[in-house]
């Protein structure tokens, strides 16, 4: 999976973007507010979260068994199940199904798993035309960009940029106004309608897979997944193996919590259950129904300290409430999954060396864990990655040595006292004429990063412990 090593470079670039800054500000204010309203209106939000957590725990504990049950039921319903160990295997399977269906045009609805495996470029490379049908995904597909948010992929794009993009890529008649959101929506709808009608294969992800029925559940607010699947001859579902739940009753709990956590809605506009190809009595639906189950590093998380992460239902509440995400945006992470969930998942999927910054770019403020509807202890999991980085020499040598030295200095009493006295004396000397102001404008060494934007206090002559000892002697 894609991961970018130059996190600080990306952060600098993204933070300089005024459009992004405005979008993130608006998103931060609205999503956190909607989340609060959606949970505050419940009699017992804590109980719903506890139930959702229990459902997901059960799903992951019995994952192997539930997946087999799911497969049996999909087969019984007339569909097929394909197992993919990694992204390239999944892409090969999907390309083969498209070739067998003699497809030319493929429509797809929003799916982060397809981003993870880079399905669209793979299918395009294999000669198929692929059209994203989620509005946000469609916009960024035209712009040649990747999603910057897992539920709001075009968050980073302004209205004006959408106008420019449509004018550039669509044959918009001169006399047709294209200025308001409604006009843009109508324009996208007109273009996508043609695509829906002429598509041969429709690809969706899945929010949940139900073992006891072989159901694939997809939620959208735009209805595009339904048009993608009912108007094509072949429906391919591609999703991660962790999406399975045991029963419809379990799925019901998650369907109640997912839209609330994601966008503050009680229900999404469309909640669709797919059960295989059209039956003889069905008025519509695809002739073929395939489910591609992707592992791609997920089963390796079972039994490790990262197993909790498999509970994730991709609601993005952790992104929406993350002060780091809302400061830098999704693209700065350089990975498919951004924000706190991405900081935990990316090292697993793309390797720790390639994503070593991500678990470190957190203040551990804990808001992500607080809002997670399935109780994933995200800061704790990020800390586990940091432990692995420390153990495997993936942090800068200076930082490692610094922490070791800090621990050593703190092992006695004398060493601490001396180190502290030296630090205070040094800073007071370094302050020079600024001593009287009480503030340092510059610092040497690692302190430079502090002093870029903040002054640093000149420490007083005597430490608290010295003053205390003096007081004790005096009384």
């Amino acid at each position, binding site marked *: 999976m894609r991961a970018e090593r130059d996190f600080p470079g990306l952060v600098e670039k993204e933070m300089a973007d005024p459009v992004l800054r405005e979008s993130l500000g608006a998103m931060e204010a609205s999503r956190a507010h909607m989340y609060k309203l959606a949970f505050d209106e419940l009699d017992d939000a804590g109980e719903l979260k506890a139930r959702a957590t229990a459902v997901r725990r059960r799903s992951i504990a019995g994952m192997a068994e539930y997946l087999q049950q799911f497969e049996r039921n999909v087969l019984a319903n007339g569909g097929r199940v394909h197992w993919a160990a990694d992204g390239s295997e999944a892409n090969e399977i999907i390309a083969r199904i498209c070739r067998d269906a003699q497809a030319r045009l493929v429509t797809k609805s929003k799916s982060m798993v397809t981003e993870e495996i880079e399905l669209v470029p793979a299918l395009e490379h294999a000669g198929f035309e692929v059209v994203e049908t989620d509005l946000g995904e469609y916009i960024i597909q035209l712009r040649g960009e990747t999603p910057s948010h897992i539920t709001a992929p075009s968050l980073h794009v302004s209205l004006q940029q959408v106008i420019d993009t449509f004018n550039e890529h669509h044959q918009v008649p001169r006399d047709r106004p294209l200025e308001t959101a409604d006009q843009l929506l109508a324009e996208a709808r007109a273009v996508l309608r043609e695509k829906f009608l002429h598509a041969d294969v429709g690809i969706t992800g899945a929010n949940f897979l139900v073992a006891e029925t072989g159901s694939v559940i997809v939620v959208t607010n735009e209805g595009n997944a339904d048009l993608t699947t009912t108007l094509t001859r072949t429906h391919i579902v591609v999703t991660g193996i962790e999406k399975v739940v045991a029963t419809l009753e379990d799925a019901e709990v998650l369907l109640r919590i997912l839209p609330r956590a994601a966008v503050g809605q009680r229900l999404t506009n469309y909640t669709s259950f797919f059960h295989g190809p059209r039956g003889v009595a069905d008025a519509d639906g695809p002739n073929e129904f395939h489910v591609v189950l992707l592992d791609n590093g997920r089963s390796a998380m079972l039994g490790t300290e990262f197993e909790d992460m498999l509970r994730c239902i991709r609601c993005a509440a952790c992104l929406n409430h993350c002060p780091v995400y809302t400061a830098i945006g999704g693209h700065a992470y350089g990975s498919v999954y951004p924000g706190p969930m991405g900081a935990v998942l990316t090292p697993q999927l793309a390797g720790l060396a390639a994503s070593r910054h991500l678990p470190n770019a957190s*203040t551990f403020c804990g808001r992500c864990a607080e809002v997670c509807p399935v109780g994933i202890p995200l800061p704790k999991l990020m800390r586990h990655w940091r432990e692995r980085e420390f153990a495997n020499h993936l942090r800068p040598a200076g930082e490692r040595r610094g922490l070791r030295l800090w621990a050593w200095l703190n092992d006695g009493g004398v060493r*601490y006292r001396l180190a502290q006295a030296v630090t205070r004396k040094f800073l007071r000397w370094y302050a020079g004429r600024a001593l009287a102001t009480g503030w340092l404008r510059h610092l040497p060494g690692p302190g430079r990063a502090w002093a870029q934007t903040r002054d640093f206090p000149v420490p007083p002559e005597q430490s608290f*412990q010295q003053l205390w000892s003096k007081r004790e002697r005096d009384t």
Partner: protein
Amino acid sequence: MSETTPQKPATAPAGRVGLLATCLIDTFRPAAGLASARLLEQAGYDVSVPEQGCCGQPNFNGGDKNGARKMALRTIKVFAGYDYVVVPSASCAAMLRVHYPELFAADSDERVQAEDLARRTWELTQFLHDVAGVKNLPSEFRANIVIHDSCSALRELGVRAQPRALLAQVTGCKEQPLANPDVCCGFGGLFCIKYPDISNRMAQKKIADLLTTKEPVDALVSTDLGCLLHLAGKLHRDGTPVDVWHIAEVLNGQASVVKGESR
């Protein structure tokens, strides 16, 4: 800031308190340490400050679990035998209360000791309010203040009401609520020097919030000196006239409005 000799109560102490002053207070704000000790003494406790260093939080969060373990063991040893361990910092208190036990194997002796220390450890305002039941503080601070809830206070210790209940006893002290009180200020320990640009953006947002309260703010008050030094450094660099006080200083009547010079 006047520092007079504290009056120890004549009655038998309510218990022995070991004060973990924290390395930041020890080094940069001794006044907050002395204020903490005095508040505890005035509440009737016998206060000691055993020779101490860092609790190990930077190592724990930096991935150096072994280093953190060593520092935890030393802290456990130093604070053995006190009825209470009081910490004028929520993040350091949370290190002892929440994370020390996580450092050791489930049924090891160390785990038992860590859990024992965790049970005896309190953040300062949590202790003054929940344990000591402090009422009618004689202090005065005539100012509009913003209370900065640290993330550790809110989400690791559940401390939100205690600072407010105590500050309500300080004559003239009036809280101006923030629009976004739950949002991190961007300090984050080593985070603030590992990712200074992100940290700075977060500080800017926090300061924008504190400059748009209903009534103009004289001072920023918090349980955590790390957040305060970070925000004070930013306020001072930008020339924004807002004072910064540790909550112990305000509760102990050491704070005054000097507009930007208290820091």
